[in-house]
């Protein structure tokens, strides 16, 4: 025995070998921890980057001085005054078009003021700066602007304002808002959930409560797991081929007498989203149903309930919080999906609110994508603003899911 162990260190050399081993262990432990720190740094950088972009200096000039239209200072103009100015100075064609979108008298003062600045005074943005630059290099920026654009006005602007939330899309970053995009996203997510929640729950109930243990069940289960891993853009292509082209009479609404659209509608995109989140939905619902203990079912069967009575009165009510939590998480995935929407044909520019499942659509992530890929820095600023809106929406959804889980989760 002792012969075999001779090459192990003993005595002093054992302790020095042990110290080396501990040193190596410490180094590796630090490396493991630093991987997590890198993840934290990346997350911090991402959030900082977005917030940094959404606030900052903007330098702009007026193409026409406001004094040409009125003697009152811009911010003191009332709704009536603005109405008069707009009516006098806009061409009648442009005025009527705006009036058709929304009657001028019903528009708010802020809305009219924006129109005044956008159409008549015509702000011309010379440059924008990030928040960090604006805070720490304020003097340099001021000097630079004073030298290059002597007429320009420099002010600190928050791109994320209440006006940004309610203003429709605009071709000028300074006046653009995310109203149509948010409404579009809500429509899409709504349709997706209307499709995926009942179908997903049904499939989960079938697989957990009814399905016999045979090859077909195994195929369905494997297939669902695989579908969950299919890239979202492939679902987009499916939506394009199936909902936009083959089912065009349904998705364009021509079956229901809607004539002015093609298949690239909210309905087509919403159904695509529904199919996209379906596998996730089924898997989550299955987990929730699995968590309901068997004794409940046996008790129900014991008093003579049929299978469906057992499911409807005992299994589903107890699994409901889990199913809802899962569907909220699936919903938040749908809210952030971009690629399938691009493929299905989100419109690049819409300034009117979607008014039904057959209207054209845009969505929050689509706007972010388009604004990010524009060259001008003011569009990057509103992209950052839109990202904050999207992240806050997602955070709210997830917080709701967690609250729901903690509130209703039962331990058996």
């Amino acid at each position, binding site marked *: 025995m002792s012969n075999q162990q001779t090459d192990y260190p003993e005595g002093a050399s054992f302790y020095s070998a042990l110290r080396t081993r501990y040193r190596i262990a410490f180094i590796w432990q630090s490396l493991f921890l630093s991987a*997590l720190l890198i993840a934290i740094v990346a997350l911090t*950088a991402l959030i900082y*980057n977005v917030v940094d972009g959404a606030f900052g200096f903007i330098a702009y000039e007026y193409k026409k001085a406001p004094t040409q239209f009125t003697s009152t200072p811009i911010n003191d103009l009332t709704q009536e005054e603005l109405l008069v100015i707009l009516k006098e100075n806009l061409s009648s064609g442009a005025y009527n078009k705006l009036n058709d979108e929304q009657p001028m008298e019903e528009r708010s003062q802020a809305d009219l003021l924006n129109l005044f600045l956008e159409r008549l005074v015509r702000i011309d943005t010379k440059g924008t700066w990030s928040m960090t630059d604006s805070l720490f290099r304020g003097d340099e920026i001021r000097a630079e602007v004073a030298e290059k654009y002597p007429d320009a006005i420099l002010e600190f602007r928050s791109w994320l304002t209440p006006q940004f939330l309610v203003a429709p899309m605009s071709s000028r970053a300074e006046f653009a808002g995310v109203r149509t995009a948010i409404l579009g996203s809500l429509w899409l997510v709504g349709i997706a959930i209307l499709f995926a929640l009942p179908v997903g729950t049904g499939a989960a109930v079938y697989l957990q409560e009814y399905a016999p243990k045979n090859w077909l069940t195994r195929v369905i289960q494997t297939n669902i797991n695989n579908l969950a891993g299919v890239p979202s853009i492939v679902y987009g292509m499916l939506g394009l081929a199936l909902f936009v082209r083959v089912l065009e009479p349904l998705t364009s609404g021509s079956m229901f007498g809607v004539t002015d659209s093609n298949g690239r509608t909210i309905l087509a995109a919403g159904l695509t989203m529904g199919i996209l989140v379906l596998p996730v939905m089924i898997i989550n619902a299955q987990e929730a149903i699995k968590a309901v203990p068997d004794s409940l079912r046996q008790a129900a069967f014991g008093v003579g309930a049929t299978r469906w009575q057992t499911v409807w009165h005992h299994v589903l009510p107890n699994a409901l919080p889990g199913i809802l939590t899962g569907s909220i998480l699936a919903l938040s995935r749908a809210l952030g999906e971009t690629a399938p929407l691009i493929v299905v044909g989100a419109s690049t520019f819409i300034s009117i609110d979607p008014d039904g499942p057959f209207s054209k659509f845009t969505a929050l992530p689509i706007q972010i994508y388009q604004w990010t890929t524009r060259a001008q820095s003011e569009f990057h600023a509103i992209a950052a603003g839109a990202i904050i809106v999207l992240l806050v929406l997602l955070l709210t959804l997830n917080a709701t899911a967690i609250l729901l889980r903690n509130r209703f989760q039962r331990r058996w």
Partner: protein
Amino acid sequence: MKEETLNIKPMEAKNFRQFDLKKKFRFSEFIIQGSLFITGILSIFVTVMIVYELGKEALLFFTNPDVTLVKFLGTTKWQPGIGQYGIWALVSATLVTSAIAMLISLPLGLASAIYLSEYASERARSILKPVLEILAGIPTVVYGYFALLFVTPILKSIFGDELQVYNMLSAGLVMGIMILPVISSMSEDALHAVPRPLREGAFAMGATKLETSLQVVLPAALSGIGAAVIIGISRAVGETMIVAVASGAGPNFSFNPLEAAETMTGHIARISGGDLSYNSIDYTSLFAIALMLFLVTLVLNLISQWVVNKFREQYE
């Protein structure tokens, strides 16, 4: 005597129903079970539709007399509109960005998984875990913004003018951060599933925590980690928005990460975003690419499931 007792009916009221233990056919139950079955089978239908619709258009592309297999696999320029069908122009970019992403996410994800599973105290876990969960929940278009407007400028200050504004490096790096939580959470689950006695056995032999983690726990969890890596690759190959925003528009056969190049997914997103006439070669070619993507990710997912089932260490 015996027959007599059997013939006696204990209750002879007319409305008494003979008790029958056979399962009764109930029409409403049948309908409900039928419709539940249909929702269950719908997922198969979705897969069939994907294969059918994508295959149909892809077939139109491949049966086009202008498209030959030699051109498709043998050339390196992709522009179906003018008769260039070299798929490698797109595949190369997918390979480069995915490789960079895996180079980032595999070591980082695995290291975080080991730390969370083996080292972290309960309190540290409750702080560190949500960070990864938030990273996993951020929409990919936001990562695209981050890649283009944060990472690219930083890389620009390192590499200077060699780096193009749109480049595969920045897209790949950010994609790595995006995939990190996927790999880390799947690997952590695998490490967590290794039973405690294995660790205690190693400690009893005098092994340090590191030796236990790397030489006992890690090998035992290898199948789960392998599955995580494969899922990570499949996510990288299918990722669209980061590459669409940050890696450039226009196919480019290049393995230089500092250059701009378009991946398969990025190409689909850009071309289908414009107005595309059905039945054009551009349109059908997108379906050929999408079908390839679908098959590649399908095979990767199947392999990952197979790896888990085949190489799982069974305890007890």
